[in-house]
Structures are given as C-alpha cells and as structure tokens.
C-alpha cells in the first residue's frame, strides 16, 4: 500500500475489572476510506471507539494518528486531532437547546444547519431543547454536529441502528460522500446491507481481538459472519420463515383487539387485531405514532378515545401494571428505559415478580433462581458480568429486557425494535424466540425499523402512517418496495420512486440468508 494510514491502532487492550473489554485490537484506516468495524455484541467495538476518541483510557496499545504518536486523553483532544465520534448513545446535553449545544462544542452553526437539511430534517428549530427531540433526530444531529467541523476521521458507532429507513438512507449517502471527498469514516453497524453498500474494507473483532481485515466485495458477508461468530455460527443459523407456519397461526383466537384508538394528534382511529399464536409486525417511518401506540397498549399513556379488548373483554389501562395484569408486557427499544443498570441480571429479570402489593413479602429464592436461570438459558445471555447489568454489552442488555417477560410468562409481548444494535447471531436468536413464543400460543406485536426482519418473523404486517393504519399485509405480500410505499402513505399499486433502498440490490439476499 502506498498511502500511509491516517489512523493506526495496534495491540489495544482494556480491562473492566475481571471482564476484558478489549484484548488485542488493531485497526488501520486509510485516507478516503469508509472502514467497517464489525463484531458480535460485546466484541468490543464501542470500547475501541471510546479509546480512539479519548473517552476512556486503554490499558495497553499504541495509537498513531497520521503516523505520529498523539496523546489523546479526552474527547476534546481527539477533536483537535481531527477525530470525531458519534457514540452509540446520544451526546447532546439534554437540558440545553441545540444552539447552546453547538456553542458548547464550538461547532459552526451554518454548516451544521446545512448538514441537518442534507440529512433529511428540513425544519429543525435550533432553539428546541435536546430533551424534547426524538431519539432518531438526536442521532442525526449528533452526526451533523460531527460533520460540521469537517473531521479527518469520523467514527460512527451504530449510527443507523435507531433510525427509520428514510433517515438511514440519507446518512448512508452522506457517509459515502465523505469517503469520496478523501476523508475517512469508521462505520459500525450490524446491518450488512449498509456495510456492503458503503464500505471499502472491514475490520472484524471477536471477543476483544481483531480477527481479520477484509475488502468488501460481493459474497464477503459469509466470511465476515464466520469470523465474527467463530464457532457460534452453526447453532444460530435458522431457516427463513416457511410460509406454512403462517397457516398455523391463522387459526388462533383473537387475543388483543384494538378499535378506533385515538391519542391527541398522534394516533387516529387505529384498529387491528392480534391473535393468539401470531406475530404481527408494525412497520412505520420515524414518528408516525408507533411509539404512542405501543405506549398506549402497554398502559404507559391513556388513549383519548377508542377501545382495547383483551380476550374479548374491554380493558382500560391506567398504569403499566394494569397491562401486565392482563398479560401484556412491553419491551421498549431503549434498554436504558427498561433496566435497573446497577442491579444484577437476576434482579432485573425477577423485577415484575415483586411489583404487586401482594408480592412485597419474602421472596422464594430457590424458585426464583430456577425461573430466572431458565430465562437466561433460553436467551443465552452472557452472564460473566451479571452482577451489574450496566457491565453487559448492549446486545446482552437487550436480551435481559426480553428475558424478564419470558420468566414472567407474559402472554402478549409488545416488542419495540428489539433488535436495535444487536449482532446477527443474537438477532437470529431473538427471531427464533419470537417464533417459538408464537408457537406456544403467545402473541407478539413487533415494531421494527429493519424491513427484512418483517419477512423473517411476522405473520402479518401493519403499516402505520400519520397515526393511521394505512395497510395490512400478509407476510407473502410484504416485500420491501410494497412496505416502503405503504410506509410513505402511498396507496398500493402506485409506482413511485422512494429511494435507494426500494430497489434492493441482490447482495441483500445473500445477507438475508446469513
């Protein structure tokens, strides 16, 4: 290679007490390259990004920037060295408005605005307080803030994970142009579509060590997955959904019946049914009322109109505990919303058992142990750091949020984007689990921001647009162009160009099989 790497890290290690976050990671990024950083949940991707950008200190390793040994001790140092991260969690200060956030980091306002528009948010009010801005938009603002200072190396940690398809697409476009302009990007994502559409090379991490660097070319996905998962791959592979499974579900009795649900301006007249033994998908672009729909079904907010029937009997939820009483459990997409981070895995899973007034007494530890370890086993949660949930990797944390309701044996599970930021192996496990639950006669309502998941998991897809159910597809009909069109509020059959993701490249088929 003639060009020298812009960023060159070798032998990076980081221990969190007994847990090794990174053992021996290396990463070398060339100028003008979009470099994917891949690895299963807990492989150490985020840890590496944090080390490169000075957010945490490495225990060992050598980092060269433009061939020089720079001492990057804080994000501010990294910024001066031309390294700008977008971390896995939003980094705007919640109580400051966007403008103050920009001033805080010394980001020029006009370029920022331009980038925000470019990224598909035309009408941002920069006097809005960050706390009031939805998560997906916040992620985009984080990116725009990084782009506005024209960094040499942009580090994007699961930037697209929480984004709806339309925003994700813009991000990809922008990132690719960064590469073309001679800047480097380190791109972390669990979505192969994005990797293959965008990246030049990929570094693969497994258990904290770099296990390979590959050029991205058609058909490379298989190899990457092999490297990522090592021996895990065999048992996690699962066949794509066979059409005859659908027939089984179709016979189930109606479990949940929603009629004319109304909630301010967010939900208009939403009606649908969910049967026992069914996984119903909900598909929507960002902010179409899906958050509110799930919150209403979970008892978190009270709808202003309409009815919800459970097993044929009308219910009114004034608190999540009412919904839980009716056997409806909610798994939020944001795991920090669902977990007591300083408590153990066991306590987190057993939490619902103690919720009711009558359950405040002594706990039967032995019985609890059995139930909890059953759930842990079923989700294959990595329990090495189980003393405190916050020490688990993102993916394992997500599993805990689901395990809780497996343990509590909830009859209906409302899953809001449960695979956000989860590696392929774990995703497969979750798909399998949801299908299994359905097989046991439970019902699942499943919102996802990734289209291909719909075909893998769901029996039916409900598409929401502008707070209304605009269409319902059976799984066979739910191909990506059709879903996309519906999600943009276009009637079936209409032909309109809705962006690059609509004409799916053949590569995604290969990805879908992995």
């Amino acid at each position, binding site marked *: 290679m003639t060009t020298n790497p812009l960023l060159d890290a070798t032998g990076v290690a980081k221990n969190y007490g007994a847990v090794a976050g990174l053992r021996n990671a290396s990463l070398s990024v060339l100028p003008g390259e979009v470099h994917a950083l891949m690895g299963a949940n807990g492989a150490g991707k985020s840890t590496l990004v944090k080390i490169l950008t000075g957010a945490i200190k490495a225990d060992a390793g050598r980092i060269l920037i433009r061939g020089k040994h720079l001492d990057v001790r804080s994000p501010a140092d990294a910024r001066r060295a031309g390294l700008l991260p977008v971390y896995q969690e939003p980094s705007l200060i919640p109580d400051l408005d966007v403008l103050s956030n920009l001033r805080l980091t010394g980001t020029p306002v006009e370029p920022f605005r331009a980038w925000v528009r470019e990224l598909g948010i035309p009408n941002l009010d920069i006097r809005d307080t960050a706390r009031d801005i939805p998560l997906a938009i916040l992620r985009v603002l984080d990116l725009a803030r990084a782009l506005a200072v024209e960094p040499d190396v942009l580090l994007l940690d699961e930037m697209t994970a929480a984004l709806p398809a339309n925003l994700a697409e813009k991000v990809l476009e922008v990132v690719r142009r960064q590469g073309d302009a001679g800047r480097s990007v380190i791109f972390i994502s669990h979505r192969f579509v994005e990797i293959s559409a965008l990246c030049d090379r990929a570094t693969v991490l497994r258990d904290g060590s770099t296990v390979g660097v590959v050029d991205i070319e058609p058909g490379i996905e298989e190899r990457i997955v092999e490297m990522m998962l090592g021996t895990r791959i065999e048992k996690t592979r699962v066949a794509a959904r066979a059409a005859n499974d659908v027939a089984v579900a179709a016979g189930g009795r109606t479990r949940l019946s929603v009629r004319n649900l109304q909630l301010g301006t967010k939900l208009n007249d939403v009606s649908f049914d969910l049967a026992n033994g069914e996984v119903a998908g909900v598909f929507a672009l960002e902010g179409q009322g899906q958050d509110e729909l799930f919150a209403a079904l979970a008892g978190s907010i009270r709808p202003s109109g309409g009815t919800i029937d459970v097993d044929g009997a009308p219910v009114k939820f004034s608190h999540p505990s009412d919904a839980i009483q009716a056997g409806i459990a909610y798994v939020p997409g944001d795991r920090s919303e669902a977990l007591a981070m300083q408590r153990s895995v066991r306590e987190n899973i057993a939490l619902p058992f103690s*919720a009711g007034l009558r359950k405040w007494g*002594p706990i039967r530890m032995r019985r609890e142990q059995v139930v909890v370890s059953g759930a842990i086993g079923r989700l294959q949660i990595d329990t090495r750091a189980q003393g405190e949930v916050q020490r688990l990797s993102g993916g394992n944390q997500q599993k805990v949020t689901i395990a809780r309701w497996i343990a509590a044996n909830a009859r209906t599970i409302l899953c809001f984007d449960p695979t956000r930021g989860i590696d392929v192996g774990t995703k497969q496990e979750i798909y399998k689990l949801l299908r299994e639950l359905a097989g046991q006669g439970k019902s699942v309502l499943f919102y996802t921001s990734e289209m291909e998941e719909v075909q893998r998991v769901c029996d039916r897809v409900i598409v929401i647009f502008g707070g209304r159910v605009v269409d319902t597809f059976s799984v066979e009909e739910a191909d990506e162009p059709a879903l996309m069109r519906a999600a943009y509020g276009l009637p079936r059959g209409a032909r309109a160009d809705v962006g690059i993701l609509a004409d799916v490249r053949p590569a995604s088929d290969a990805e879908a099989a992995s």
Partner: protein
Amino acid sequence: MTDIATMPRPVSFGRRIKRFMADRPLIPLIILLIILVAILQILRPGIVNERWLANTAKFAIPLAILAGCQTMTMLTGGIDLSVGTVATMSAFIMATQIVSQDPTVAFLLAILPAVLIGLVNGIGVGVFRVHPLIMTLGTSLIGTGFLQVYQRTVIASGAKIPDFLNWLGTGVTYGFPNALLLFVPVAVLIVFMLNRTGFGRLLYAVGDNERAARLSGVRYWQVITALYVLSSLLAGITGLLYIGLIKAPSLSLAEPLVLPSVAAAVIGGTSIFGGRGGYTGTIIGALILTVLTTLLTILQMPEGGRRILFGFIVLFVTAAYLRIIEDR
C-alpha cells in the same frame, strides 16, 4: 509491537488483597473501625473496656436505626431529614402523655404523629413528586411547630420517663446493653427486607431506574409511601429508645442525630443517588462515627481543631473506602 496486554498479567499480592476487600466491602470498614478503636486505646490506655463498649453500643444504636431510615430512603434516591423531628416528637409525646395515660395509649399517641408525617412525606414525594429533601425538610419544620404548640399545653403536667424505656435505653444485662433487644431484631429485619423481600427489591429498582420499575408494573407511589411511613415509624421508635437513654425530653432531642445519620449511611457505602448500598455497612458506619466522637472528645485540643479533624476524618474514611471498593 508487543502485545503484553493479551497475556494474563500476574496479579500482585496488593491487588489480590484489594480485590478480596472489594468483593467484601464490609471488611475494609471493619478494619477502619478497629484502627479507630486502637488509636483510642493508645491515646487513653484502658479506655476500651466492657463498660465503654456498652456505652458505645448504646449511642451507636439510635444513630444506626436512624441511619437505617436514611439507607432505605437513599436507596430510592431520596433522603429523610424529618427523622430527627419525628424521633423528638414521639419521645416528647411519650414522656408527657405517660403522666396521665395508660402506657399503651401513650405509645399509640406517640407513634401516631410519626406515621402521619411519614404518610405526608410519602404522598408528597411519591404522588406529587416533591424533592425528598424539600418535602422532609418542610414536614420537619411543620412538625417542630406543632410540637412547640403542643408543649405549651403540657408544661403544667410535667414529664416522666417510663421505666421500661429507661431499662431499654440505659440498662445493661450481662454486659450487653438492653437496647440490643430492640436493635438486633430491627437490624435483622431491615437486612432481610432489603435482600430477600419484594419490597426491598423494589426500593433498589425504583432508585436505580424508576421508569424501568414502572414498566415492570411497579407503582412508584405505593413503594415510596410505604417507604416513608416505614422510615418515620422506625424514627418514632428510635425516639422512644433515645428518650430512655437521655432521660430528658426536650424539643430538639434527636435533631443532632440527623446529619450524622446521613453520614453513617454514606460511610457505610450507600449511594446518595440511589440503587446501591445496604444496611450492614451503615451499622458499621454508625459505629465508626460514634467511636470518632469519643476519640475527638478525648483529644485535648480546641473545639475548632476538633471540628476540623472530624471533617477531615469523615472525608478521608469515605474516600479510602471508595478507593478500596470501586475497581472490582
């Protein structure tokens, strides 16, 4: 480009000890306590005798129970500054009502305001979401006011310390203070409650992540209301024990215990931000503070110097303790 990092580094003896202590955070605390006692013994040879131990226990017990109230409330991210007032109220009411009432009635009358204040605290914090600091401060102001108004109605009737409380507060049997009869069950109950009951779990969960608890079906206001009532109840009982120990009802009897009770819980490793901690540490924290008070009394130095020393020692103890337990 050596990759030393991948080698498992040999663990030094110091690190091993540190890790051992970190997994058992009580041990460094106990060592600290022993060091303080040793210093005391060096300064005043012979002081550490049976009588001194009993006296230390007597004074540590009320502090430890109030610190238990703080531990529980701090686990939920709260604090209960009304414990001093509540303890004082129940003590004062007991001492004045016993003159004319049946002991059971006097006891009920003494405990009633405690429960009421706890209830108001709980509703304020749990339902109206008032910050616990402000809420409990407010109710303690209100309580003090009521107590002063009440005091004027009983000046003429005098006060008396019931024999039983006297026995409980100051008595010693076979070298063991009788107060242990109250304290041991209370301590066991609190420890059991925090570790092995649903309610205890909820205290931690609510303090760690209230939204997560809510999504798991926990009704915040129920937990908080029960918690503050329990805390006040314990404070009320402490007041009764304390009046048996001090034997002089005054309107500010237990006020001086409030800040030390918070300090004891913090020294014992309970996080003021919620979700982390436990009661056994708190008990040792209370003992440490009590021994420290004695130590400073014994030291012949100006009052100013003593306070400075007290401040530094509290800071040093907490810092050292944190240092030891933090990197597990």
